């Protein structure tokens, strides 16, 4: 990850949001959002359903432009379309609907994670580098989906699909990984294994991880810092080890 090293020396923040207002059409969903996520850290965005968590996810992944304010990703102004193109492949994401290719099998879906670094002609012939193939096998074993590798996605259960999407993101090794409701539909054991692997990627490659969650316990357990959203907007960013209890977060989330 040479590119990451260059970026690291230039700036400290992976994501910087300044006075951001986002919404659909001319109707704002979130106003005055301000926070900066340092490179290599793991942050969570939590809040009750309908406060705009997925809207924020769309903003960070470039699927939605802000109505107002400034967003900088890896030191580049993310509103400019040239910079968005430059950053393509560096921001990995796991959307709520996972974005898997239903008619490809599990292994092919996971290997799609390596497309950004595979030369065009071999990738069109379905060829991948030995290291990517080996890594894909290891990740599949860790997430316990190796027995499903030749199965088409549409034959899998919700939890299995989620594991495939996580495996694809792990093989991708992006500089920033944004996951929307990653831990829902996963049993506690699989969630722990998945998060362990994501954490390993965070430490080995300096990946910045953003978890968009409504499960407060999981968010506090895995992240360094939590951004709390309520119906009135952003409440604040809290260091997860300084939060007295889960109830404290639940209270400020629902406070009028």
């Amino acid at each position, binding site marked *: 990850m040479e590119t990451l090293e260059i970026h690291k020396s230039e700036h400290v923040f992976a994501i910087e949001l300044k006075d951001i207002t986002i919404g659909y059409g001319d109707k704002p969903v979130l106003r005055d959002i301000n926070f900066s996520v340092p490179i290599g850290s793991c942050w969570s965005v939590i809040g009750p359903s309908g406060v705009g968590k997925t809207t924020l996810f769309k903003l960070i992944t470039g699927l939605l432009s802000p109505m107002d304010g400034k967003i900088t990703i890896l030191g580049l102004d993310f509103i400019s379309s040239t910079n968005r193109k430059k950053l393509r492949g560096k921001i990995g994401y796991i959307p709520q609907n996972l974005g898997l*290719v*239903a008619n490809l099998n599990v292994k092919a879906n996971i290997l799609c994670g390596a*497309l950004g670094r595979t030369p065009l002609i071999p990738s069109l012939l379905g060829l991948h580098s030995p290291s990517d193939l080996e890594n894909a096998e290891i990740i599949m074993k860790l997430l316990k989906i190796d027995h499903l590798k030749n199965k088409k996605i549409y034959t899998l259960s919700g939890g299995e699909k989620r594991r495939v999407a996580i495996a694809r993101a792990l093989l991708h090794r992006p500089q920033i990984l944004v996951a929307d409701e990653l831990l829902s539909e996963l049993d506690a054991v699989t969630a722990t294994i998945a998060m362990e692997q994501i954490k390993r990627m965070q430490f080995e490659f300096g990946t910045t991880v953003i978890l968009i969650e409504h499960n407060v316990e999981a968010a506090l357990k895995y992240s360094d810092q939590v951004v709390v959203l309520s119906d009135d907007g952003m409440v604040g960013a809290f260091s997860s080890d300084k939060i007295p209890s889960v109830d404290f977060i639940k209270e400020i989330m629902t406070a009028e």
Partner: protein
Amino acid sequence: MILNKSYQSIRLPKMSFFSLFVILSFLTFWSLFNLNYLRFFSRISIAGTLELISNYFFPPNFDPKVRKSIEFALLETLQIALIGTYFGIFCSLPLSILSANSLTPKFVHIPFRFILSAIRTVPSLIWALLFVITFGLGPHSGILAITVYTTGFLGKLQYETFEGLPSDSIQALKALGAGKIQIVRYVVLPESGNSLISQIIFMFEYNVRASSIIGFVGAGGIGFLLQLYIAYFHFSAMLTALIYLLVVVVIIDFLGSKLRASFQDPSYDVLNI
């Protein structure tokens, strides 16, 4: 939806189904009277046709020589349809990818759509006529005509399929750093594969019928034979040729629909429970 964006600008004024029906009926009957069409339904012409059929068409001529030439022409028709469909697939696929608004920017897909619709505007019979004039009589002109028409027709079906694909997997692969050609290879083709195969089978069925017509302008196949039988008043042989054609078209349509059904997406039932 991105899909409907281009159609949203063309909007008819809101009207009830009944008023639409009245307007349509009025226009139809006005055209019918305007064309003095009712005279074709006169008793004399119907009786004349029936007399012609009973006197000259029956019994069909199953002479071995006639059968042999019909079988040869019919095989040629099927070959024209097959070759035309085959080459049409290869010509239509790149054009349809370039015409899909979900895959290419406006300045690319608008001109390519125009090319496809321009090809479709000209019927296969006229394409055949143009190629007969340019390259001479024979099945080669028929093959060219069917290839060109298939390109226009299949191209439209394909780009509409591509545009109908859910955008989430395309977006996800973009985020993974995949390029446009990789997205076509890993999302567009696998996700629309079954529809593409169904369309190709449908196109072949359509082309078998089209190939039997284009012979009328000298582009080979059974149409050419039918035209000769009419010109030389061999109506009983023409009836035999029509019976052969009917049997072949019915068999191909039946097999085609069975084959298309087997290519339906297996997840289709699951989604519709």
